């Protein structure tokens, strides 16, 4: 009885994630700041898991950041999203996989709006036809790219060469996870574990040997706030939110921060640098910051991919302390070199934040 009751309760927190044949919609923020992550996602799905993923050059931004910065009207965003779905339909796919939490939240919101207000769906079909001549089907399955990695976390773990375990002590690494507000705060049933017990990143961490660290401000926003970061005069909002989280997680001495949304790791990475410059304060060990990883980077490291091909040299907070803890061999000489070993110089060293260069 107890087990059945548990199953019934947890049924509300599960979501269906398609098994194969994905239409991949790239993220503006992830492509700009974590470009290696999207390449890693495709490599993992295609080469490790043998999945069919369509990477379409013709899709565009969903306009999500513009929508939530209030410069793009709802009807415009709906129709741009309808165009993405039209491209998916024309390519013969039904499973839509966005690489961005803002997009994922927006796709969820628009599909729900079409469901509850059918006249908006009809209007969108008319607008899209008028503007582009295209027609579209709503996806059968909408899953964020992290949902797909979560679905195959066991397979990735089994193929993996490294575990999230300190190779000197044998202890699991302490990982803080940050889910990204729009993953499930708006539509809890759309996220694995809902808004109360989001499990998408926790499942990865536990499967790959790490220990999830709970802390008071775990569910607080990273502080993007769209216009609150986009406009320089507002950026104190963004910085303050991240600062609140760093102060809250600091006593637990996390070895890394794992993120779901492409924006959150950017803010956690860059605001650690900004705080070090403003206050001389750092949150990692020995003057370093706390390394911040995307889920693709973490999966890639578990699988033994080269950290510099994963783009981890593009973090302002050095990831080397994390790599060293799990005993991951890397070549520091290649960190800032080009693909063919060409010398690209080196970034300047921050005044307070210690970095590996």
């Amino acid at each position, binding site marked *: 009885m107890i087990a059945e009751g548990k199953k019934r309760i947890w049924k509300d927190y599960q979501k269906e994630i398609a098994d194969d044949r994905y239409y991949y919609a*790239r993220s*503006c*923020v992830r*492509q*700009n700041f974590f*470009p*290696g992550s999207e390449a890693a996602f495709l490599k993992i799905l295609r080469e490790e898991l043998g999945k069919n993923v369509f*990477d379409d*050059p*013709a899709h*565009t*931004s969903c*306009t999500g*950041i*513009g929508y939530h*910065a*209030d*410069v*793009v*009207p*709802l*009807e*415009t965003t709906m*129709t*741009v999203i309808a*165009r993405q779905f039209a491209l998916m339909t024309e390519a013969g796919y039904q499973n839509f996989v966005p690489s961005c939490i803002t997009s994922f939240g927006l796709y969820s919101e628009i599909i729900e*709006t079409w469901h*509850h207000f059918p006249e908006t769906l009809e209007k969108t079909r008319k*607008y*899209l036809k*008028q*503007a*582009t001549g295209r027609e579209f089907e709503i996806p059968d399955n909408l899953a964020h790219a992290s949902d797909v990695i979560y679905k195959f976390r066991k397979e990735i773990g089994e193929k993996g060469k490294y575990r999230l375990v300190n190779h000197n002590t044998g202890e699991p690494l302490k990982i803080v996870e940050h889910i990204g*507000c729009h993953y499930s*705060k*708006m539509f*809890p049933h759309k996220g694995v574990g809902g808004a109360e017990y989001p499990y998408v990143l926790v499942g990865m961490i536990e499967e790959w040997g790490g220990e999830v660290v709970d802390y008071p401000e775990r569910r607080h*926003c990273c*502080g993007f*706030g769209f*216009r609150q970061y986009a*406009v320089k*005069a*507002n950026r104190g909002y963004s910085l*303050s*939110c991240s600062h609140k989280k760093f102060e809250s997680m600091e006593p637990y001495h996390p070895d890394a921060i794992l993120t779901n949304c492409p924006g959150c790791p950017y803010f956690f990475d*860059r*605001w650690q640098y900004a705080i070090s410059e403003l206050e001389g304060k750092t949150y990692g060990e020995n003057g370093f910051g706390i390394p911040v990883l995307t889920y693709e980077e973490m999966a890639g490291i578990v699988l033994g991919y080269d950290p*510099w091909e994963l*783009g981890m040299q*593009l973090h*302002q907070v050095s990831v080397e302390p994390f790599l060293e803890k799990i005993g991951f061999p890397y070549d520091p000489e290649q960190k800032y070199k*080009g*693909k063919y070993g*060409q010398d*690209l*110089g080196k*970034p300047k*060293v*921050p005044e307070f934040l210690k970095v590996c260069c």
Partner: protein
Amino acid sequence: MGKVYDLLLKDVRFTEGMNSCINCGTCTAICPAAEFYNYQPRKIVDLVQSRDEEALIGLLKSETIWYCGECMSCKTRCPRGNAPGLIIIALRSLSQELGYFTESEKGRQMLAIKRTIGEWILKYGYCLYPPEMDMEGHPEQGPIWEWELQHLPEIFEKVGGNYNKPGAGTLRRIPQEALDELRAIFDVTGGTARFEKIEAESAKVAEKMGMDFQGGEDQYFKHVFNAIQINHHHS
């Protein structure tokens, strides 16, 4: 029922977000903006459900509606199923539609958002694009970004990207046909009209302020992007 409230009722985000507020303040307790700014989503929802026309117009002209970060934490927690964040989005849309956004310092920032994110979407097909995010506008990016900006093609090649090139891949050049379709969608659905409204209303204010208003990063753009001339925080 006043005119402003009637207009709000036409926005599905408003009708979905506004049920019946019991003034419990749970939204304010969880709101990141309420910690940072002199802001209470509870008060916004309470005022809106009063349907007081004069107060609603005041709200559309106020600083208050621009403080929210649209994180939607309030939506999860409201015991009555309201979504103050959605109400805010509807208020901000209406403030722009009625030309009230230029009455507040935070509202006037719409010009900067239009000339950055708004125009980048149509120009590149992305909300962000590296060469547009320089160190002057984004000093928080740190020396790593300064280095990256100097070597974008080589770095993207190393990490499996396709920077500014045709075909698929990370930060590829979006095909012109796709950009043309994007622009056509903006024309048909009101996106272009909103951009034009923001420019037109901002031009009037720039003239009153005696500021240069030529497009791009002109004097008025720099002013609204950087200005903090009033106290937005708890005193």
